């Protein structure tokens, strides 16, 4: 559940920016001749609605109804008492109470679209059964269209506002890494320090995963309970600030930082720089590169639908999907060095064709 800071600063995210995003979406809706698009949100899949309206559900679920013109309407399965809070943190035309989201969507469509209509749904395949059933069984059921590609086509590249939020999220994460106690012996000590720092820094959410002993394994774990920290460990911190997510991974050594790690970090920067919209692959390495180690795994992730981050390219799947230059993305890389594994991850702005990517921080 989201339990970090949720608030809306009109200076950080001006209403005009949200209006422009909705207008671009509506342009596409009109071009596709859709009568409305439904966008589902829960705290597990908050990002599309948050990008359009700044609304992030701390729990529960909602459905945003966007028509070719006019302000979006939020059907919210929250108690009516929460509506004032919803209005205070988001930019919406209307908020309606909708304990049964699917039924409420049908009612709204009947009110606004009495004639046979074509209804787009973002990530139609993934719409929860409870929400989908009343819609699919209504008279609009025959005209449902998957609007995933439509939304993705406008979602990236990132605008300046989103990049600023991402920088703030990254700064929160970096500060949290600095808060790790030098002599931490147990995962619980460092997780506590990370959470405290990140949440006091204004994080909306923090998802830490940890490989507590790199000599025993590189799997990033969600710990229930505790674990002893090895001499070398890795922490992946995914931080949201005002609905914008970044993922940063760092290795920590309780001894002096191994020289191989400095070289690995240089290799990360070089590798990230090579990525651009025409090249979403990490291989092959630059000929003659003196950088150490072998790539064991990597992922490039971005936000282009309702999940905060989803995979664009990875070493474990053959074909990357397209991503335009200027997109906000996160690169995670695992190297096998002569003296053991190394993990790193940073957010970046993807380069345009022929241009290098820029690390965000």
């Amino acid at each position, binding site marked *: 559940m989201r339990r970090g800071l949720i608030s809306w600063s009109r200076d950080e995210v001006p209403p005009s920016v949200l209006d422009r995003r909705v207008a671009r979406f509506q342009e596409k809706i009109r071009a596709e001749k859709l009568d409305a698009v439904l966008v589902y949100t829960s705290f*597990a899949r908050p990002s599309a609605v948050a990008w359009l309206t700044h609304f992030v559900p*701390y729990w529960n679920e909602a459905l945003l109804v966007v028509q070719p013109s006019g302000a979006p309407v939020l059907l919210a399965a929250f108690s009516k*008492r929460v509506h004032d809070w919803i209005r205070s943190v988001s930019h919406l035309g209307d908020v309606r109470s909708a304990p049964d989201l699917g039924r409420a969507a049908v009612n709204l469509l009947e009110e606004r679209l009495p004639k046979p209509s074509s209804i787009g749904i973002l990530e139609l*395949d*993934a719409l929860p059964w409870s929400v989908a059933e009343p819609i699919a069984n209504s008279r609009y059921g025959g005209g449902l269209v998957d609007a995933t590609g439509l939304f993705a086509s406008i979602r990236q590249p990132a605008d300046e506002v989103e990049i600023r939020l991402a920088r703030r999220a990254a700064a929160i994460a970096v500060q949290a890494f600095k808060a790790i106690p030098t002599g931490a012996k147990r995962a619980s000590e460092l997780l506590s*320090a990370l959470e405290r720092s990140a949440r006091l820094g204004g994080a909306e959410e923090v998802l830490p995963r940890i490989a507590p002993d790199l000599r025993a394994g590189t799997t*990033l774990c969600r710990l229930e*309970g505790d674990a002893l920290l090895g001499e070398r460990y890795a922490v992946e911190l995914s931080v949201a600030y005002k609905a914008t997510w970044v993922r940063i991974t760092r290795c920590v050594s309780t001894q002096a930082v191994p020289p191989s790690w400095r070289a690995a970090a240089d290799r990360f920067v070089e590798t990230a720089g090579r990525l651009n919209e025409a090249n979403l692959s990490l291989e092959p390495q630059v000929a003659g590169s003196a950088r150490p180690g072998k790539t064991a795994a990597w992922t490039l992730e971005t936000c282009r639908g309702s999940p905060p*981050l*989803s995979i664009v390219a990875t070493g474990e799947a053959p074909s990357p999907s397209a991503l335009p230059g200027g997109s906000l993305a996160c690169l995670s890389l695992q190297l096998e060095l002569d003296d053991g594994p190394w993990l790193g991850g940073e957010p970046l702005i993807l380069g345009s064709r022929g241009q290098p990517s820029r690390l965000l921080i």
Partner: protein
Amino acid sequence: MAEEGIDVLVVAGNPWRSDYLRFAADITPVEGHAFALIEREGPARIIVEHPAEAARLRSEQAELDVRWSLSAIEETETAIRELGRRRIAIAPLAAAPYRLAMGPLVATIAPATALLDRLMLRKSPSEIAAFRRAAVLADEGYAVFLKAARVGRPEYALVAEVEAFFRSRGCPENFQILGSGGREVRGMHPPGERRIAAGDLVTTELTPCVDGYYAQICRTLVLGEPSEAHERAFSVYNEALEAGIAAVRPGATAGDVARAQNEVFRRHGLGDYVTSEYTRVRGHGLGLYVDARPALLEDVALKLEPDMTLIVHPNTYHPEVGYFVHGDSVRVTADGCEVLTKTPRRLFSAPLT
């Protein structure tokens, strides 16, 4: 599954609704969709959306067959097709995706949400043990919250202190909302930037998760000395909480527990404030989901049984002081209930300096 004639149960989940997956396959998704294909015998097959999630789940349970796919829903659909003519069921309604539940395979898959709902209501001894540990942590978490509540601190700083404490105790998850202010406050919400001030009522609903199981505590504190109005309000909520807890016993309905609390408000002339205009529920089930069945509402006829776990909370708006919360986690016993949260039932006061 054998009793219901199910050969393979497909259970869906995500970070928002991970409860059914945790119950059926002991996994908790952190990101993306996750699906478990569970046969009557043999290990479950798990399909997730991210290679890191797959690696994590493999490390947690080596015997699981975990694979990942960028199209986890399609991959699961393919796996279901490959099961041929076996009897397949899917759950839950809240998380199973449209394509699996209502897509091309709809004629061959039966719904199984009700089956799992029944199984998840009454807790096993090991589930109760986890719930007890969560209740202890809820009490300790409230003590941290109480200490953190000081004039001038923003709401989110209070939650940061509680979260840091929970992580220090190995607790990965917590549901927490709060409210601060006076009569203008109508409910609770995630923490904002408001700085708490002298005379504020500060409410919180704090719900740590231990081994997957949530226990909850609700308390209200005043910044500074409580006024007579605060004390009067507290006595009503305390009476309602005690009445609700007294009504929890096997055979009573969820509605009985709600009614017992609401009658107290009605007797005090506050009947308007137990309607949906001012409050949601008078408590609810707890377990692998923070807002589990049954909802404690007067029209809910579900009968309580031993080893169900609940929060009883007469939380609602009070016209003199604003939104007020007060609640404890309980386990239904053979002849009543056991209250598992032990924080004293009083109106707490935090010092102004």
